[in-house]
């Protein structure tokens, strides 16, 4: 669909054994989850808390530029880790096995304008189940961007580079609004009654987040009201820009494929294949990977969303090996390279495009050379025969 696949088409048996090999990898990894992962996530949470305290304290002296810079950066880093390595992964239930109620996916509330409950629905369920299925996975373009041929072009797509930039700077508010599914209310698939129900927690969370960063801490700072307020806004923006960049590289790079809405009878192997082909990885240092919440391993995350993310790099070795043997393309690259293809994609589909000819051509059975043009005389005699 749209993007030409770089992966070899597999037979039904190959797909089945592809799935089985990945299932075996999953089982083998799950069996070793224990103390190491538990200690790790507690350390991550402590890091989030200590950097938040350090950042917010530093901002209290924010009239002095070095303290403001240090404070905004520390708080930004804290929010990034809380959002990605801690929040996103905990909400996936990756640490449910610890039986610690404060790290349970079903009730962890993250430091974000959107509620965890709406995220669980739109992300854990909808996005991870219908990954890159155009028409079902609303994350494809987040209802405002056109990223593939199959999405119908609308005039507002012309300015989508600007829309994307605006979304990036306000990503947390964008996601929060997006979770309300206003597009579905507009097209009638979501009732106003349901919207009404969803509005209450939405408003409560928006108020809580705003009150926290725009009122409570600034007021607490007394004379440092302004530096704390601006510092908090800067920290949230830092988090928004970073998460936007990483998340958009997940499924919108050049090689990321989109799929038609016909996955009802998808087998497990086919599910793994769709997760692989729809996702893309990022190459970077261990610190970089940590700061992406291991979404640098988007492929592994989509294949194994409930395995603690710190295990993805080690699983990736096996996943790549399996993909190589089955002739499947493993989409990875540096952040600069991958993100530049995302930007290109945003620009490309801002204009109306026709279906790619090459993608259709492979389906054509008759080779062009076999079609011989009819001589003009024969054509004319046929036409006169038909007219008669």
């Amino acid at each position: 669909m749209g993007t030409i696949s770089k992966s070899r088409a597999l037979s039904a048996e190959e797909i089945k054994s592809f799935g089985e090999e990945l299932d075996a990898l999953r089982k083998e990894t799950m069996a070793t989850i224990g103390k190491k992962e538990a200690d790790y996530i507690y350390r991550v949470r402590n890091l989030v808390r200590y950097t938040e305290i350090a950042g917010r304290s530093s901002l209290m002296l924010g009239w002095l530029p070095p303290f403001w810079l240090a404070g905004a950066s520390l708080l930004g880093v804290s929010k990034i880790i809380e959002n990605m390595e801690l929040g996103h992964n905990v909400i996936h239930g990756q640490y449910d096995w610890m039986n610690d109620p404060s790290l349970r996916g079903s009730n962890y509330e993250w430091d974000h304008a959107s509620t965890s409950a709406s995220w669980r629905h739109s992300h854990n369920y909808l996005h991870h189940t219908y990954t890159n299925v155009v028409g079902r996975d609303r994350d494809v373009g987040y209802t405002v961007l056109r990223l593939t041929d199959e999405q119908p072009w609308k005039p507002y797509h012309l300015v989508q580079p600007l829309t994307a930039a605006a979304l990036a700077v306000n990503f947390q508010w964008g996601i929060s609004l997006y979770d309300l599914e206003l597009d579905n209310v507009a097209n009638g698939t979501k009732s106003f009654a349901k919207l009404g129900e969803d509005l209450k927690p939405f408003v409560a969370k928006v108020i809580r987040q705003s009150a926290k960063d725009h009122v409570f801490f600034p007021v607490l700072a007394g004379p440092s009201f302004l530096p704390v307020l601006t510092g908090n806004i800067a920290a949230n923006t830092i988090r928004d820009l970073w998460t936007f960049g990483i998340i958009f590289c997940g499924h919108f790079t050049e090689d990321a494929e989109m799929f038609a809405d016909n996955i009802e009878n998808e087998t497990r192997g086919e599910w793994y294949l769709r997760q692989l082909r729809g996702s893309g990885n990022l190459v970077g240092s261990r610190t970089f990977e940590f700061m992406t919440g291991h979404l640098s391993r988007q492929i592994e995350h989509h294949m194994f969303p409930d395995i603690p993310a710190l295990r993805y790099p080690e699983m990736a070795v096996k996943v790549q090996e399996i993909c190589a043997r089955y002739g499947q393309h493993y989409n990875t690259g540096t952040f600069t390279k991958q993100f530049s293809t995302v930007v290109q994609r945003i620009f490309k589909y801002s204009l109306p495009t026709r279906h790619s000819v090459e993608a259709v051509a492979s389906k054509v059975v008759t080779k062009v050379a076999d079609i011989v043009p009819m001589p003009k005389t024969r054509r004319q005699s046929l036409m006169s025969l038909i007219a008669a």
Partner: protein
Amino acid sequence: MSVLSPIARRVVGKIAKEDWLDFMVAHVNPMLAVNRVLARVVSIDDETPDIKRFVLVPNNNWQSFNAGQFVAVRAKIDGIFHERCYSLVSAPTDNVIEIGVKRQPNGRVSNWMHDHLNVGDIIELGDVGGEFVLPAQLPSKMLLIAGGSGVTPIYSILVEALKRQAKLDVVVMYYANTEHDLAFAKEMVELAVKHPSLQLHYALAVTGDAGRFSPQQLSAVCADYTDRMTYICGPQGLMGAVSNAWAERGISAQLTQELFGPAALSSDAVGNAMPITLRRSQHVLLNTQPSILESAEAAGVRPAYGCRIGICKTCSCTKVSGVVRDKITGAIDDAPNSQIRICVSEPLSPVVLDI
């Protein structure tokens, strides 16, 4: 931190997350917490070769209990919280908590407590529960039957009963393997000295048939047992035999039982009709479908679900008690208060879910 009034506690809970507050106050004093009960181990003593007595001092969040009830111990072992229930041996009015923990052959928590828990360590306690308690109005005659480590709630009830009525006619029948396995024997002998109306009997398996339960053995020791309100706690074999004997004599109503250990595994066929209790929504339904989720839906309940294939964890909820099998991994989970994905779990025993 019950220094805070309930109102203040709710307000604080709304402003800051409870786990964040617990984290902060723990820096000041590791025993402080907003709601959680934390307890410090003050002594550990060997009572029998495989039973140890743990005395704990709880923090201010500890609430009282009734004699005969149990408390859940939340042991964090290798990063995972495991919850097990132990009968409270101390009196409700004591300012310390005492439990007796028997080392189970493959028991994760009991072995950890025996081998790794030390004096001075802080441990988390869960809820107090159980209905193995004395009635408001004591009967004129009582019979307390204990088997092995089942003596813990029996001893607790005995102390309470004699406190309420010093001259209560009570018979204690304690079954154990050898005399080294008699726990709380010293305390019970002291009670017998103080309270002449208490009759204390031991039956040791090593002595042969006289040391094992049978209606004959019991009536030799306590001829009027059929007239007594009876409490029993012990291993499954003893409990089953006593329960049958009482049923045969039509006096089951006089028997109050407390079973230690996980519920028996039953047939695991699809639709094994195991009762599934949904605690919050007050539903009880039977397992008739391949998974708990489908059984609930067949019964007209609508639990939260997502992918229905065990990936997204939308359906993940707390299994309060019971044994389930994960259909994807085959793993059997019999721990209390653990998270399960109901779309891929099937019950192997009666199950209670916190939804």
